[in-house]
């Protein structure tokens, strides 16, 4: 895939730091004449075409993994993902291409240099845990340090610390076969963490666990990654897992990487039919974020516009409430029509006095699953704000539903409150025109509306 190669042909990530791991044009062909097979594959031959020369497990893989990111390689069995990960730490030697970890070339390194790179830069977590059954949990976790020549007291102390990190303190002196699968894999992760390498390779690490434990482990991994800032290359055949864990995902098929992108890119813009078909069944609510579905917020007035300005916007947009922003477009809250109207009638020009600060707001990277409850409780659209409280957009209920069903939403302005609760246009006009005549908006307000005011 040419676009994959060209896209990843830069040695640095967007923030300018060097890639933690970089893979360039890597091939792996098992068989009698790997060289011939690589040449033919490079000319565009498929896996089946080179069956005579050998079996092509990985074809022209190129990508960079940025420091501190979780890079997921996803593919079905036989797609070459396990072969690919084994070339990253030199367990398998590529037929062509190069792999660099932390600036050191793994390919072409001598056996001794490769051992040194593994000890200092890259550790691994295995599908079936691969713990040493004749050693205790503590000794297993200390294994990497032991190989590294760290003295016994230091390595056991370090191992104990990491075991605490994965929550297995009380099991330190147990043998692995006394532990459940999930606990064994936590030992596997602790062993990899204790080795104090920057890069962690995880080969189908959670695939052997049952679904509930798997979910728990995924959350724990994300948590650990955020605390420790490790660079993780994670192999999986489970798309939901890939979407949940991955900062970026490489989708593999028949030995080739067919797309590299963020979970949302893969979901919303699949590179080909294969990927599209693949992502069909994914749980969209877990992958899509507030930022990817939010609508531009139109019902917004700066607090300097005053009650009259707010009322005018409400009339123009046919809505019963507007968001109010302060200096620098920071979100202050919202006001609803009857309060504003009362203020206009009273001749008060300070909109801030009636701003309601109780509303649902979320960060742009919040998953849709976390929006449902808020959407149920709040009649207002959910406000999406950045770290400085600036209003980025809004997510109304209808947008949530549309996003789940993969239906394009209408681009019409989004009313802040459901229209039924609105004060009639004529009343608004009258208020704006005169500002004196006492019109009781309460008459037209129903129960839904009261909930809204309370929210």
């Amino acid at each position, binding site marked *: 895939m040419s676009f994959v190669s060209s896209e990843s042909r830069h040695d640095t990530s967007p923030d300018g730091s060097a890639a933690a791991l970089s893979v360039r044009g890597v091939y792996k062909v098992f068989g009698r004449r790997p060289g011939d097979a690589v040449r033919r594959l490079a000319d565009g031959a498929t896996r089946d075409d080179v069956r005579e020369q050998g079996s092509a497990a990985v074809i022209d893989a190129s990508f960079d993994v940025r420091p501190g990111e979780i890079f997921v390689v996803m593919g079905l069995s036989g797609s070459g993902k396990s072969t690919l990960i084994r070339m990253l730490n030199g367990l398998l030697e590529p037929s062509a291409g190069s792999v660099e970890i932390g600036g050191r070339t793994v390919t072409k390194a001598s056996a001794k240099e490769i051992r040194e790179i593994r000890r200092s830069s890259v550790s691994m977590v295995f599908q079936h845990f691969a713990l*040493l059954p004749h050693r205790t949990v503590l000794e297993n976790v200390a294994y990497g340090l032991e190989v590294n020549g760290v003295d016994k007291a230091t390595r056991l102390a370090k191992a104990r610390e990491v075991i605490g990190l994965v929550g297995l303190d009380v099991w330190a002196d147990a043998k692995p076969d006394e532990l459940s699968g999930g606990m064994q894999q936590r030992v596997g992760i602790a062993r990899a963490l204790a080795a104090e390498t920057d890069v962690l390779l995880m080969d189908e690490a959670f695939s052997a666990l049952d679904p509930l434990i798997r979910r728990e482990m995924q959350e724990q991994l994300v948590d650990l990654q955020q605390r420790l800032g490790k660079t993780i290359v994670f192999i999986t055949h489970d798309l939901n897992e890939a979407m949940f864990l991955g900062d970026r995902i490489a989708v593999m098929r028949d030995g080739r990487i067919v797309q590299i992108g963020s979970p949302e890119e893969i979901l919303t813009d699949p590179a080909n039919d294969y990927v599209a078909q693949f992502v069909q069944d994914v749980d969209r609510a877990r992958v899509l974020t507030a930022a990817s579905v939010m609508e531009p917020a139109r019902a917004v007035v700066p607090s300097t516009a005053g009650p009259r300005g707010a009322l005018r916007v409400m009339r123009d947009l046919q809505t019963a409430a507007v968001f109010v922003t302060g200096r620098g477009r920071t979100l202050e809250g919202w006001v609803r029509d009857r309060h504003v109207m009362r203020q206009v009638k009273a001749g008060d020009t300070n909109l801030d006095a009636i701003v309601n600060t109780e509303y649902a707001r979320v960060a742009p990277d919040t998953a849709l699953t976390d929006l449902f409850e808020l959407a149920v409780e709040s009649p207002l659209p959910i406000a999406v704000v950045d770290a400085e409280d600036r209003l980025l957009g809004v997510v109304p209920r209808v947008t949530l539903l549309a996003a789940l069903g993969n239906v394009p939403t209408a681009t019409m302005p989004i009313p802040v409150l459901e229209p039924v609760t609105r004060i009639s246009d004529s009343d608004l006009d009258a208020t704006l025109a005169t500002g004196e005549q006492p019109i009781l908006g309460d008459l037209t307000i129903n129960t839904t509306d009261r909930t809204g005011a309370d929210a």
Partner: protein
Amino acid sequence: MTSLFGFRLPLGNAVDAIVEWITTYLGGLFDVIAAIFTFFYEWIEYFLTTPPFWAVIVVLVALAFWAKGWKLALGTLIGLAVIVSIGEWSYAMESLALVVVAAGIAVVLSLPLGVWAARSDAASRTIKPVLDFMQTTPAFVYLIPALILFGIGPVPGIVATIVFAMAPGVRLTELGIRGVSSEVVEAGAAFGSSPWRILRQIQLPLARPSIMAGVNQVIMLSLSMVVIAGMVGAGGLGGQIVAALNRIDVGLGSEAGISVVILAIVLDRMTAAFGGDRKKRVPSRSKAAGAPTGADDPAPAPQQAEQPVPANA
């Protein structure tokens, strides 16, 4: 007389010539080997025959207790007492010394060979037919050159025993190491372990049950060779059986034969216990008093069934 179009392959003559060449030019080497084997044999025999019989029995019973528990200890005690009471004790100890030396050397040779065969397919393919050859060639056939090279005494018996008994040691070591989960070996490599460290810390410990089963088999096969060793002057229970055969002495033959069986069972149960999980080596209280030979333990029974001990004894 049948012949292949009058052609006769001079195989026998060739082997004759080879053995003669070896005797002439490598005689010194074989003298050294003989001296080493004799040294080991006499040293161990000294420790088994010099002390009073009860002292040796106490040591062996203690060993049985440590290996498995009180049932095996009791069985060992009764078995050895029977050997003493039928007057075969000193012969039994001579045979035991021969078995210990031969099995010890066979294990020392077979372990590295098994490791090598496990690491290299080519080595495995080469070693396999050689082992088949060693195991299936009738023992008397290589006893003849052994006699020529080492002379009468325990040494040709030891050599013949090593040749015959080595094969399962090599095979089960290879099998055990190849059977270690490739992912665990990969894990060792992934953390930067050298091949030697992987062998020492991962492959050998995990292959231990299989290797110990091999050691057990080596010892059993060694014991089955004592009769043949007896024919070339090694003495011991083998010597007694050969003497009984010459005199058609049924009584003596059966006494020596029973002694071989008792030694075999005691050694088998002990080595099998060492091969098992250490945790399971605690005395079990689940059953009533153990049978004299420890036959209440069903675990090693399948191994016992394969052993040619009764046939040779």
